[in-house]
């Protein structure tokens, strides 16, 4: 199980830096210095924005939504019928989460989410998108050969299970409601939330 919270680097292979990255760092530093010198931006605001996204948004929020839906049938009905309202009810709202649709995995259907045009992603419940979600490979391929893409993630979806892909081309953002794993009847809602992974809510993994 991947317990990475989606922020910072994951364990494993070190990321190879692009040689042009030094140029990017300089470019952003120049933009920041000019914007501050010209009174266009409050430097402290930059820190506060970063802190908000790193501390208060992220997949833990989505996981608590999923766990509640697993234990409370009424909440699940509400969530699938009006995702935005049901998610707001748990205190999660904001940019890139104004309209959220929740799609349910079942024995017949497996859902997976993408944004082929840019990087649309439900920030309040999943945080900011991981790098691979924004990659050319994921964006180009998952609408064309989702089974092959899922297989690269280690997920083999049988042909009789329909794969439903959701390309976030307008203002609706998508969250996958994974199937509750078998043998979890004794777990509390909080323990269940601990099982839910970010990739499970994008649809590139099962829970």
């Amino acid at each position, binding site marked *: 199980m991947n317990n990475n919270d989606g*922020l*910072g*680097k*994951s364990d494993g292979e070190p*990321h190879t*830096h692009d040689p*042009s*990255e030094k140029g*990017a760092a300089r470019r*952003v*530093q*120049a*933009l920041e*210095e*000019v*914007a501050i*010198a*010209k009174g*266009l*931006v*409050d430097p402290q*605001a*930059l*820190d*506060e924005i*970063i802190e*908000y996204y790193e501390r208060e948004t992220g997949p833990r929020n989505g996981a608590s939504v999923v766990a509640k839906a697993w234990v409370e049938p009424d909440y699940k009905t509400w969530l699938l019928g009006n995702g935005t309202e049901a998610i707001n009810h748990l205190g999660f*709202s904001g*940019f890139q989460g*104004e*309209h959220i649709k929740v799609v349910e995995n079942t024995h017949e259907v497996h859902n997976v989410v993408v944004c*082929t*045009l*840019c990087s649309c992603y439900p920030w309040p419940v999943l945080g*900011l*998108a*991981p*790098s*691979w979600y924004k990659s050319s*490979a*994921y*964006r*180009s391929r998952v*609408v*064309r*050969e*989702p*089974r*092959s893409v899922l297989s*690269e*993630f280690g997920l083999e979806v049988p*042909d009789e299970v*329909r*794969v*439903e*892909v959701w*390309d976030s*081309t307008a*203002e*609706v953002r998508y969250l996958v409601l994974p199937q509750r794993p078998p043998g979890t009847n004794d777990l509390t809602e909080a323990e269940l939330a601990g099982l839910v992974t970010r990739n499970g809510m994008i649809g590139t993994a099962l829970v």
Partner: protein
Amino acid sequence: MDGIHDMGGMHGFGRIPIEDDYVFDSDWQRRSFALAEALAPITPFGTDEHRQAIERIPPSDYLKLDYFEKWAVATESLLKQAGHISQDELDVGAKLFHADVGDRSPVTGPELVQAMKQGVPLKFPDDSQPQRFSEGDVVLVSSESPYLHTRLPRYVRGKTGLVASAEGVFAFPDAAVGGVGAPRQHCYTVAFSSETLWGREAEPNEVIHLDLWESYLEPA
């Protein structure tokens, strides 16, 4: 715009870089993200303008630049377009002239975070615009390929799909940024079978959904 950003269905990009599992890998990426968010209200620009500025990056650069460097390029170009900064200033990293932002002032951290938590209202009442399609309608997607900003990907143009749901009335980005089309329209989730999109190459038993504004669609 038929740019490199419209990647759905393209061949040749290889394996998914699953190991790139991070949100930020360097501090400059954090700064680039926060700069775009903090400079949006004062410039001013919205999400659609920022997206369009990214789409205008030449394809060879688009593929080469890091995601957050593209954000910085877009933020720079919107600030330059508004006349608030110059390329000379960015080259030397210093202020060379006073920026006239009218009665706007920098937004404070708490104000920005409050706005981010609240979100931006994007939806208008369902009955505020006539609704042309309903769930179950078969629709043909427009073949128009505008030079300006659009949210209609190439891979569904000219294809036939099924309206899966009506999502309500939203501002139309093509109009907001490019000035083309009705500014508010119904938007629909449209389902396409993989065979419709990819023919004999398609994998079995797959449905691809896109959210499409009404003027992208005609009755089939």
